């Protein structure tokens, strides 16, 4: 039925679309209620904390909240202004405030991110803040000569606004020079970019190794008779059921220079006792252990894809005149692509953010970006920098996700 405007209507004249929406509304509400608990849980435990973390990467008010007078002075005097008596007066007032509120340490830590050694200046000068009398410049400089260093004042100016992208600059091994323009940090201090590259290249190596090792296993699983396949599947999954820490530790037992592998090779005479190979506390150790730990993540999606490929495809290719290699390359391999994509992407993303294994077997050489994030969270307490590094890691993962979607298509992914 149609009404005057040509729209489809129900028997009693209501527009069909409205009637359909009404009839589906209840069902939709019920479906939403079913997922609501999980949705709330994810919101509270996942999305909100990540949001907060990302917020911290460009919002840090530890200095701006504790030094209101300096904030006001920086507002009134644009960059490049002379640091005059009024500035020192504001500093003296803030230091007094910090002493009173016991926040000198926190404010100092914030400035210390940019200028190392400045935390102690804050704490020690704040201790005597009550005694300063005008002229404040002389009084403060008499107490601590380093206060007339323009670097300190530049750092305080940039920290006077709680919103800053300096942490992202730091995460990219960039800094601001005296004039405020962005320049690379000094040669010896650049660490993050190398670390990002290393994390990326190690993740790619681990992903490639996992695919290379996992492909034949998955194929075997898919073609073996049920009983044998189940046994093999248990062997593949066994590491899954073991604690991550136990697995990593057993690799340490195997790989260390006084470990099983080296002992075996010395015993067999392959290497001399003084020529034990360093297989751990470097990239090799990290790659070996992580490949082993992440292998099931490639095997399972590959297996689930291969299981659905009937053997008749390869047989058809063979009967049509293809050698077994051609049949594999032209017919079998292309059909496993969704599994390769899913397994590869999964392992790559997991490897990018892996923490515990590189921390235990990585040494100095095999550290990854996550270890640096943990360091800033736990040791240096520079949460904003940690957040900036984490945000960049997240961005890199999302970029790879996007590339994957463009190349393979996310809808083709099969996770078993």
């Amino acid at each position: 039925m149609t009404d005057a405007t040509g729209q489809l209507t129900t028997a009693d004249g209501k527009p069909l679309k409205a009637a359909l929406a009404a009839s589906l509304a209840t069902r939709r509400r019920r479906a939403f209620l079913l997922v609501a608990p999980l949705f709330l849980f994810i919101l509270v435990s996942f999305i909100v904390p990540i949001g907060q973390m990302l917020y911290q990467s460009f919002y840090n008010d530890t200095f701006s909240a504790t030094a209101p007078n300096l904030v006001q002075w920086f507002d009134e005097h644009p960059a490049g202004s002379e640091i005059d008596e009024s500035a020192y007066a504001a500093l003296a007032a803030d230091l007094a405030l910090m002493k009173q509120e016991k926040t000198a340490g926190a404010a100092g830590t914030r400035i210390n991110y940019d200028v190392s050694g400045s935390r102690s200046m804050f704490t020690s000068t704040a201790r005597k803040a009550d005694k300063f009398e005008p002229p404040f410049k002389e009084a403060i400089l008499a107490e601590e000569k380093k206060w007339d260093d323009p670097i300190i004042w530049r750092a305080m100016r940039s920290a006077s606004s709680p919103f800053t992208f300096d942490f992202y600059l730091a995460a990219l091994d960039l800094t601001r020079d005296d004039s405020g323009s962005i320049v690379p940090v000094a040669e010896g201090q650049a660490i993050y970019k190398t670390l990002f590259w290393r994390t990326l290249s190690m993740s790619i190596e681990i992903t490639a190794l996992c695919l290379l090792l996992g492909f034949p296993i998955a194929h075997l699983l898919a073609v073996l008779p049920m009983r044998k396949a189940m046994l093999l599947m248990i062997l593949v999954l066994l590491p899954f059921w073991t604690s991550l820490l136990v697995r990593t530790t057993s690799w340490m037992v195997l790989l260390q220079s006084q470990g099983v592998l080296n002992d075996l090779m010395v015993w067999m005479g392959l290497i001399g006792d003084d020529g034990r190979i360093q297989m751990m506390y470097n990239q090799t150790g990290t790659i070996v252990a992580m490949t082993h730990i992440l292998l099931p993540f490639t095997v399972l999606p590959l297996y689930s894809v291969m299981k659905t490929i009937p053997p008749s495809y390869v047989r058809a290719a063979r009967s049509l005149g293809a050698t077994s290699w051609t049949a594999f390359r032209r017919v079998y391999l292309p059909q496993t692509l969704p599994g390769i994509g899913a397994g590869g992407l999964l392992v790559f993303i997991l490897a990018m953010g892996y923490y515990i294994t590189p921390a235990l077997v990585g040494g100095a050489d095999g550290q990854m970006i996550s270890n640096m994030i943990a360091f800033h969270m736990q040791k240096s307490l520079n949460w904003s920098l940690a957040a900036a590094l984490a945000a960049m890691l997240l961005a890199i993962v999302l970029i790879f996700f996007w590339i994957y979607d463009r190349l393979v298509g996310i809808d083709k992914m099969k996770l078993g």
Partner: protein
Amino acid sequence: MNTAATDDGFVVFDHVQKSYDGETLVVKDLNLSIGKGEFLTMLGPSGSGKTTCLMMLAGFETATHGEIRLAGKNINDLPPHKRGIGMVFQNYALFPHMTVGENLAFPLEVRGMGKSEREAKVMRALDMVQMGKFANRRPAQLSGGQQQRIALARALVFDPELVLMDEPLGALDKQLREHMQFEIKHLHETLGITVVYVTHDQGEALTMSDRVAVFNDGRIQQLAPPDELYERPQNSFVAQFIGENNKLPGKVESLDGDNCTVRLSTGEIIDATPVNVRSVGQETLVSIRPERVEFKPEMMPPGAHMIDAEVLEVIYMGDIFRTRMKVAGTEDFVMKSRNTLGQTKLRAGERIKIGWHPQDARALDPM
């Protein structure tokens, strides 16, 4: 058309045996010779060894014992891609990541054929199955019947002399299946290729083949043209498996050349043709086709025995009446009579006498 089995056949199975586990034989001493240009069907229930035979011929399974020869050459150790045999699979096995055109070009490509020649051949093969417009589609965009045609075209595009078909029509609906049977038969005749066809559908086997090999229990039970297979089954299995069949168990009463009489377990005597019986007193199973049963005395040859029957049920099937009767103790004796003008209408409960020409009743092994 060469329907004669000769020793120098195009395809020869010579004492072929196959075992998967070393304990049981799936194929037991198979001897089969297929002539060039012949359409041979391997028919049998699942697990009878017919698909294994096909797979051995294609090269995906190796014979445990014996020799398989193609055009006089032993192909036991020849890998599948060097055999040059076209094959159509049950699920079509069209490569899902290639277009129809690429699927058809695949066998030509791996043979190193040039692009222009390839395209011409692909188009010719597609036209042959009336699918010329579909070269750029993906297999998933085609219906079952269309995929079937493409699979057929792909198996033929590289001009193989032998084409194997493994239940190719199993997934199609009845009407389409019958249409495709006709098309495959037609292609076979125009191209002059040799076809080995595997099916468990006896109707398909009878309508398409030059000869049918009925498989059971790893052996060929009978190898014969369709009419012979239906009308003159060599043993009880074939009689049962092909078409509908009435069975009457009994003992051979008298034996005289091409005729014998059988005393049924309930005492009646019937006429039969001895097939698998050799001596008087032997146990036998007499097999009679439902459409060969007569209930009018004037249709019977003189002197033929007739026995009592009680009509249990008459089913109207349009072209025929299907009458179920109680005969010699069995209640599922079936007679089919044509629905002609003036045909006698039987009713349930009626008692009649039935009989048959002696050559239509075959005294077979007791199974």
